[in-house]
């Protein structure tokens, strides 16, 4: 039962999210089994809820890769500057008129931004020699703050409406998702998850420290680079499409680890499912609790994810020993 629970909950949340909203859908079950029969269900809600699953999966696995590659319990795209870099890359390309929101171009720009800022975080954190968790986190927070400011400045200066608002880039929204701009984020998510699955056994060995991982046959710098690229592709695709959504990258892998243990092969699938579940629930809450207004989804994910994280840390567990 434990094995299937998040999947069952995700399916239930998916259906609930399709059903719930400002407009009542008549004959819901009939409309559901007849694709295209109801415009609100099939043109608006279905792409949106599907996007929630994909984005949640992408951010959950991106967080898992960040934690595994850094061997650090609090690493995640937002902490490493990856999410802010993805926002900056996307907002710069969109506001300069080079690409459209949700296009493959915007996703590519976001991915490049994510990759560059993550690389910058790693470079600056190791400038005085070996890479420590402490310096990585401090530098990551600083890089994140700098690029979040750049995003604010760039979006305020942008004349194009589709450069979105600072609220979109810092708190996220799935409101403008369409079936068309789902394809790009679906592609980057599948690529990133496939890479994560392939390098998962090496991430298991990396948890024993760089030296022991090397003794076991892991090319540590290469695996770390591959993980960095994969997490940038995942976070870049998600953030450039729906903005930054907090806590998924941190909470989803920890919840998955708490339930299923530390094996990264298992965690790739379960972090994706739990990430998807949190975002679907958060999106449903964000568009229903303050009707007719819609809250930024980042507010709901923070409210859902943060207490779970506090609970995991507060209760003694041996899944991730931090001291």
């Amino acid at each position: 039962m434990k094995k299937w629970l998040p999947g069952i909950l995700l399916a239930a949340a998916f259906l609930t999210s399709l059903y719930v909203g400002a407009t009542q859908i008549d004959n819901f079950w009939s409309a559901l089994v007849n694709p295209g029969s109801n415009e609100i269900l099939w043109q608006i809600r279905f792409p949106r809820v599907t996007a929630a699953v994909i984005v949640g999966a992408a951010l959950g696995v991106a967080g898992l890769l960040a934690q595994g590659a850094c061997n650090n319990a609090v690493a995640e795209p937002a902490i490493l500057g990856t999410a802010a870099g993805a926002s900056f890359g996307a907002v710069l390309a969109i506001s300069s008129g080079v690409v459209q929101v949700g296009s493959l171009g915007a996703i590519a720009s976001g991915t490049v931004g994510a990759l560059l800022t993550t690389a910058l975080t790693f470079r600056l954190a190791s400038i005085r020699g070996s890479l420590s968790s402490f310096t990585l986190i401090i530098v990551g927070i600083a890089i994140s703050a700098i690029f979040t400011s750049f995003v604010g400045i760039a979006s305020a200066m942008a004349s194009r409406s589709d450069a979105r608002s600072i609220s979109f880039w810092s708190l996220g929204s799935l409101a403008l998702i369409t079936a068309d701009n789902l394809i790009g984020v679906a592609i980057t998510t599948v690529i990133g998850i496939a890479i994560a699955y392939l390098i998962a056994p090496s991430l298991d060995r990396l948890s024993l420290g760089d030296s022991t991982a090397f003794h076991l046959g892991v090319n540590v710098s290469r695996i770390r680079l591959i993980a960095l690229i994969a997490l940038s592709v995942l976070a870049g695709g998600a953030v450039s499409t729906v903005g930054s959504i907090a806590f998924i990258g941190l909470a989803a892998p920890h919840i998955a680890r708490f339930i299923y243990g530390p094996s990264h092969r298992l965690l790739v699938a379960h972090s994706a499912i739990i990430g998807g579940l949190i975002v679907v629930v958060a999106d449903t809450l964000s568009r229903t609790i303050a009707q007719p207004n819609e809250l930024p989804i980042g507010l709901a994910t923070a409210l859902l994810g943060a207490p779970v994280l506090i609970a995991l840390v507060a209760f003694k567990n041996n899944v991730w020993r931090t001291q």
Partner: protein
Amino acid sequence: MITIDEITIVRDGREIIYDYSEQIPAGSITVIVGPNGCGKSTLLAAIAGDIAPDKGTITIDEMHPILTPASALASIRAMAVQNQSFTLGFTVREIVEMGGPSEDVLQALGLTEIADRLVTTLSGGESQRVAIAQAIAQKTPVLLLDEPLAGAGPEETEKLITLLRGLKSRYAVLLVEHDMQAVFALADRISVLAEGRIIASGSTADIRLSAEVRAAYLGEEEVPC
């Protein structure tokens, strides 16, 4: 066979290892002893391929560790580091299986009873045994062990000595160890390092009789028999 040919390792402008040569044949146990900070662990790290010597060469079965890809190197040498820490809650069995098939090794090291325990709950001595088991499970011709008896009680020490002696027919074993009683029980050959230089090298009988070793390392203590 490990061949170390006149290597020098410099760190922060200081010669940690100077002009060191040694041949460690298959089917033998060689132990490096010496005071803290004399370069023993650095030497082991260089042989494992973690660091490159500044001068000289190291080969393991004709392969240069520093030039060999990590995956290929893992099939010719295994190493158990000192004070292995575990951050993720894998079971003992899962950790050993990262090296290779686990059942025989778990049994040989007396780990069967704790095979399903999380490594994050182990004592220092148990963690050390798990690290050794993982290295042995790699089934490589060369086994490098950094203070394998650290944290072990008298009974565990005796078991590990018996196990390591049993392994030597299949491996070239090189280890760094402080426990001189265990060193004399284990070693076919002992090298004594002081300030990065070999001050004596030979059989256990040679080392026991070496006045230089007594003066530099063992002090006035009687060498255990």
